[in-house]
């Protein structure tokens, strides 16, 4: 494995963490949007709040991490993506602004004016992953030329980018529902637990259908990635399927134990399946990882910084999670 491959793997670790943690956050925002006004909807909203309040900012730091590693280690790929897909990327950035401020303000505003802030939070939770998905779909379908400047509209409005966007949305909803089943269980709220089990089952079925649609779209529009996923990446795709089915089986049996790691496993396996399928390309069909890599010392700097970040941030993050689970001091 070359140094450029190692840094690409680091980049992909960031993508994976963003997909799982921010994905669950986005999904929670969507369930918040759909919770309605009833008494149970309000309770669901309160549970969602308690689950994401301490971690929502830290989770989204992974996006900054991905952007920074991309431009430091693979400047040409960063520039190519940015000069082609600037429309969905701008819309995703807008979504991030509205989502973050909507969430912050609904906490800090007095009761009566929280409604609009909540809706802004919910809607942008849905739109942001959709546009992120179209970006990934556009890259997979080879619509980003190595030198950038691809078509700003047709590059991301094909079938594959749109299906990928939809897949991102339902996957976020699915992840969040599974996380919230566990949180409801931990809060001894059997009613809310059933509420989110139903939502997890429905979103799992929709996500499965979207994934199948995605495979068909890949077959039509992104043959290179399709061949990779059904070749070297096949074991990971199968692993993802098994994890997904196991979650369904457990939920149907009414057992919540183990569903969280399994659901995360399903997402992680498919994200890495994509990485394997893409290899050795950064932008499928147009730019290889080796050719996209920047100066050697900068790659080393990224590896060193990643090591330090892991050593410093993970224990801190652990402390935060532990503290948010702990009861208040009397």
């Amino acid at each position, binding site marked *: 494995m070359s140094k450029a491959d190692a840094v690409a793997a680091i980049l992909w670790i960031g993508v994976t963490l963003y997909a799982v943690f921010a994905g669950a956050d986005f999904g929670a925002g969507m369930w918040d949007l759909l919770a309605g006004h009833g008494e149970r909807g309000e*309770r669901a909203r*309160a*549970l969602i*709040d*308690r689950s994401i*309040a*301490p*971690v929502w*900012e*830290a989770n*989204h*730091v992974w*996006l*900054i*991490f991905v*952007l*920074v590693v991309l*431009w*430091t280690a693979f*400047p040409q790929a*960063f*520039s190519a993506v*940015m000069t082609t897909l600037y429309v969905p990327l*701008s819309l995703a*950035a807008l979504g*991030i*602004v509205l989502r*973050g*401020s909507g*969430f*912050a303000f609904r*906490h*800090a*505003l*007095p009761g009566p004016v929280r409604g609009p802030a909540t809706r802004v939070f919910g809607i942008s939770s849905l739109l942001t992953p959709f546009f992120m998905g179209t970006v990934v779909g556009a890259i997979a379908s080879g619509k980003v030329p190595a*030198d*950038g*400047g691809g078509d*700003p509209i047709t590059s991301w409005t094909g079938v594959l980018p749109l299906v990928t966007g939809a897949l991102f949305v339902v996957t976020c909803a699915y992840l969040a529902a599974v996380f919230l089943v566990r949180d*409801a269980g931990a*809060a*001894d709220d059997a*009613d*809310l637990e059933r509420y989110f089990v139903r939502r997890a089952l429905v979103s799992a079925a929709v996500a499965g259908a979207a994934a199948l649609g995605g495979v068909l779209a890949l077959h039509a529009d992104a043959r290179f990635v399709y061949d990779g996923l059904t070749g070297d990446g096949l074991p990971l795709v199968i692993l993802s399927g098994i994890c997904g089915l196991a979650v369904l089986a457990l939920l149907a049996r009414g057992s919540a134990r183990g569903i969280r790691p399994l659901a995360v496993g399903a997402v992680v396996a498919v994200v890495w399946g994509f990485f394997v399928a893409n290899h050795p390309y950064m932008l499928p069909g147009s730019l290889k990882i080796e050719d996209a890599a*920047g*100066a*050697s*010392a*900068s790659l080393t*700097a990224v590896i060193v*910084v990643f090591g330090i*970040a892991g050593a*410093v941030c993970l224990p*801190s993050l652990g*402390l935060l999670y532990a*503290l*948010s689970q*702990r009861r*208040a*001091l009397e």
Partner: protein
Amino acid sequence: MPDFTPLIADAGSNLLAARYQMAFTLAFHIILACFGVAFPAVMLIAEYRGRKRGDEDALRLARRWSKAVAVLFAVGAVSGTVLSFEFGLLWPGMMDRFGDAFGIAFAIEGIFFFLEAIFIAIYIYGWERLPGWAHFWSGVPIAISGIGGALSVIAANSWMNTPAGFTLGSDGRVSDVHPLDVLFNTSTWHEFVHMWIAAYIVTGFLVASVYAVAMLRGRRDRYHRLGFLIPFTVAAIAAPIQIAVGDFAARDVFNDQPTKFAAMECVYQSGDNQTEHLGGICTDGEVKGSIPLPGVDSLLAGFSTGTVVKGLEGVPADEQPPTPTTIHLAFDAMVGLGFAMLGLAVWFAAAWRRGRDLPATPWFLRAAAVAGIAAVLALECGWMVTEIGRQPWIVSGYMRTADAVTPAQGLWWAFGLTLAVYVSLALITGVVLRGMARRWREHDAASDVEAPYSPPSAPASVGKAP
């Protein structure tokens, strides 16, 4: 580097739109960044005092300030995320060619930003869950990572002013990068220290101005007095230090960025015994309407009227900053405001020495109430000098801003939308902070107002099945 030229229909227009958008979003973010760097320290000073002396008012201030820190950090985090998108969306030419040198500082900044996010949440959760001094110490990493984050971002900016630590390969790409030389280029230290102190001045005077207004409206209890004194003292200590640091920084600019210095001081003809112009318009090779101080510019730059200052006329026309008057006036405004704030600090110190109290006249509080705005203006003027003074370069001497800008269409629309979103964001942030303050006043004892990272204020009432 990809050749964008055939794609650019209206490059001049794109350049202007992109520069406006970058300037506007940075000008917005920099204020929040100041709070991110300095507000945690001010809050910790209050908590330290509260714990050390059993001072309930100070503890209450620390607790409430931590909620304001959280709101400001949340907004700053999104406006910062937008900036990282903008590097690619607006300036792909620079990122494509220099991303691997320029980017290193941001990789390090990422760690500090992450730590800051984590420990702000820990600190806010900790009010209920961590005992006494453990809670204080859980806040210290916030203040430290704010400083580290500022150093990293400033390292990236100073690299654009005085690029170092790389060689350009035959393909025009960066090769042979030396990360430490990139990070610690000749401008890093003066820019960082100047900005670091500025963050304390902006935060100190802005927070104090809120309490100055409250005191002018008659809320002169101990709580408000303390809420004024803690941040004001921080800023008052920082103000004289900043004058010395600024003097040092200007001399560094004189040595390392002579063209920027010429524009700041409106010097056209190179030579010794240069006149220092206060104010005035720089046009057609001369300064109109200024207050001239003969020889003083040379004296300030090199401690002797014999010091030779390079003038703009020695610089090729297409390498001169396009608007020297803006740069010159922004510089003068920053320095003038800096001295005005120094005067306020001296006034305060003199009164405190005499009677351990604020100056008795209401004019002092009135001046303190506008000092926050003055500090923000000085901050923005300083950044205008740094950024406009570097033009027409984005990477000094290596890449023009016009060659870095995106060929994308619809930039003016994006700028309009950004303007609308940010103005709303600023207004709502103001409403939120005022709302917090009002609820604190109305429910004086129950100090709990929810903040973005906080546990719900009544945890027992939610999450239980009926």
